C-alpha cells in the first residue's frame, strides 16, 4: 500500500489456552499499517481470543505481541486505548445512557482528566454519528435500539477514539444486507487515514470483497494468510471447514458458495 507503511501488529509465536490446554499454538503473523485484514475460522477456533490477545486483555503464555513496534506487555492499558479501538459483537446497557453519551465515551482515553467533554470531542462525536447514520437517534436510549442500530453506534464509538488500529469482532452479525456493505465501506474509508483494521467474521464473501488480506485460523494456527484469491480456495476451505465450496469470480470479487459438508471431515 502506502510507501511509508510500517508494521502495526507483529504477533510473534504466541501460545495461549484456557485451563492448561492450548487453544492457540505458535500463532505468527504481521499486519502492516493501512491494511484491512479479515480473520476467519470455524467456531471455537479462537478468533475472539486472538483479538483479545491483540488488545492486551489477555496475555499470551508464550511469545510476544508488538503493537507499533512496542512490546504489548510493556504498554499501559491507557496507552493501548489511545492506539487501538475495539468493536465488540454483543453489548448490553441498561442504564439509560443515550446514544450520544455512549458514543462520547469513546473519547475517554483522551479526556481522562477533564470532567466535561470539550468542543473538539463533541465535534468528533457528531461527525461519527453522522457517518454511521445514527445521528437522528442521538437522544434515544441505547437499550431501545435494534441490534443493527446498536452495532453502528458501537462503530461510531470506536471511530471517535481516533484509533490507529481497530479490532472488530463480527461486525455484520446483526446487520441487514445494505448496512453490512455500508459498514464495510466506512471501515474501508478509515484506511485512508492509515488505520489498520482487523475484522473477525464468519462471512467469507463479505471479507473477500473488502479485505486486502484474509487469514484463516484453524487448529490453533494461522493456516493461510494472503489475498482473498490466495486464501479462499476450495482446497483450503474444505480443509478448514470440511465443506465443499465452489469459488466463483465476478469481476474483482470472489464468492465461495457452499455445496455440501464432507462426511469424512466430521471432526475437523
Amino acid at each position, binding site marked *: 500500500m502506502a510507501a511509508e507503511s510500517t508494521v502495526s501488529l507483529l504477533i510473534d509465536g504466541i501460545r495461549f489456552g484456557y485451563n492448561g490446554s492450548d487453544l492457540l499454538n505458535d500463532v505468527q503473523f504481521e499486519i502492516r499499517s493501512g491494511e484491512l485484514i479479515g480473520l476467519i475460522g470455524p467456531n471455537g477456533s479462537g478468533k475472539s481470543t486472538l483479538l483479545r490477545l491483540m488488545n492486551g486483555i489477555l496475555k499470551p503464555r508464550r511469545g510476544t505481541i508488538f503493537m507499533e513496534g512496542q512490546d504489548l506487555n510493556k504498554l499501559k492499558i*491507557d496507552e493501548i486505548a489511545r492506539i487501538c479501538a475495539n468493536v*465488540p459483537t454483543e453489548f448490553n446497557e441498561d*442504564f439509560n445512557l443515550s446514544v450520544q453519551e455512549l458514543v462520547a465515551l469513546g473519547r*475517554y482515553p483522551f479526556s481522562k482528566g477533564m470532567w466535561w467533554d470539550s468542543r473538539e470531542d463533541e465535534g468528533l*462525536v457528531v461527525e461519527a454519528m453522522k457517518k454511521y447514520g445514527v445521528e437522528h437517534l442521538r437522544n434515544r436510549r441505547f437499550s431501545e435500539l435494534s441490534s443493527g442500530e446498536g452495532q453502528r453506534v458501537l462503530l461510531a464509538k470506536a471511530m471517535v477514539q481516533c484509533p490507529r488500529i481497530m479490532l472488530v469482532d463480527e461486525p455484520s452479525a446483526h446487520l441487514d444486507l445494505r448496512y453490512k456493505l455500508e459498514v464495510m465501506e466506512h471501515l474501508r474509508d478509515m484506511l485512508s487515514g492509515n488505520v489498520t483494521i482487523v475484522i473477525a467474521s464468519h462471512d467469507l464473501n463479505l471479507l473477500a470483497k473488502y479485505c486486502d488480506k484474509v487469514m484463516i485460523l484453524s487448529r490453533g494456527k494461522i493456516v493461510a494468510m494472503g489475498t482473498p484469491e490466495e486464501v479462499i480456495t476450495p482446497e483450503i476451505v474444505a480443509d478448514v471447514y470440511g465443506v465443499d465450496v465452489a469459488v466463483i469470480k465476478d469481476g474483482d470479487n470472489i464468492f465461495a458458495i457452499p455445496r455440501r459438508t464432507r462426511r469424512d471431515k466430521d471432526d475437523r
Partner: protein
Amino acid sequence: MEEVVVKERSMVDQAKLKLALVMGVGLLTLFIFLMISWALGAVDIPFYETLGHMWNIIVNFGPEHGNPMEHIIWSRMIRSVAIIGVGIGLSVSGVVMQALIRNPLVDPYVTGISSGAALGATLSLLAGISIVSLAEFTTPVAAFIGAIAAFFVTMSLAEATGGRSMNYVLSGVIVGIAISSFTTIIIVFSEDQALHGALFWLYGSFSYISSTEALLTILPVMVLSLVLLLYAKELNVVLLGDEHARHLGLDVKRFKTLSILIVSVLTGVSVAFCGIIGFLGLIVPHSARMLVGGDHRLLIPASMVLGANVLLVADIFARILFRPMELPIGAIISMVGAPFFIYLLIKRGKEYGG
C-alpha cells in the same frame, strides 16, 4: 424559534443547563420542605415565627437560653441536617453500587450492607459490647464495621458464584437474611428497655440525634459524595462492562476496588447514627435516572438533591401522620420502596436473569 435555539446548543451546554435546572428546583423544594419540617411536628409553629427564630439561631450560633420555641426549632434543624446527610449518602451509595455491579436493582439494603450495620449496632446496643475508648460512639462504629464486613461478604459470594448481576442480588439477600437471624436472636435475649432503642434503630430514627452526630453524618457524606462525583466519567465507562472499560484504558480492577471501599464507608456513615432506611438507595437513583438519564455527571448531583428531598418529606410524614406519636422513618420509605422494587422486578427483572 425556541426549538431551533435548543437544537444548536452543544451537548455539554445542554447537560449543564439540565444540571442547573435540577439543582435549582431541587434546592428550592429542599428549602420549602426544610421550612415545613421546622414548623410542623408535635408542636406547630407558624411559618413567619419559624423564620424569625431560625434567623436568631443562625445569628447566635444556637438557640437562645430559655426560649422553648427556639430549642424546638434548633432540635428540628439538627435533625434535618442529619436527614439530608443520610438522604444524600444512601442515594449516592445506591447510584454508585448500581454502576459498579452493573445492576439497577441493587442498593445498600438489597446488598446486605444495612443488615450488617444493624447487626453491629444491635450487638453494641443490646449485647452490651462496648469499646471503652469509643464510649457513645460505640454503636455507630459497630454499625460501620458491620456494614463494611457485610458488603465484602456479599461481594465475595457474588464473585465466587459467577459475578453476574443476579448473583449480587441473590448473595445480598442471602447475606441479609443470615445476618438478620443473628440480630433477631440477640433481640430475643435482650431486656425490654434496650429493645425499644434497638427497634428504633432497625427501622431508622432521627429522634435522638445530637448536633455532633448530625455533623459527623453530613460532613463525611458530602466529602465522599463529591469524591465520587469527581469520578463520574469513570463510572460512565464502568457501565460498559469490565472488558469494554479496559479497552477504553480504565484500570477497572483498581477503580472498582477503590470505589467499593468509598461506597462502603459512605453507607456505613449514612446508617451509623440513625439506623436502617431501606430502599432509598433504590428509589432515588432510579427516579433520578428517569429524570436526567444515565450520565453520572448529572445523575449523582440529581440523586443527591432528590435523596435529600425524599427523606425530608418522609420525615415530615413520619412526624405528623399520627402525632404526637412518631413513626419510624425507615418504615415509611419501605412502604413506598417495596412496591417500587416489585415494580422494577416485574418491568425489568427479566433482563437480569442471566
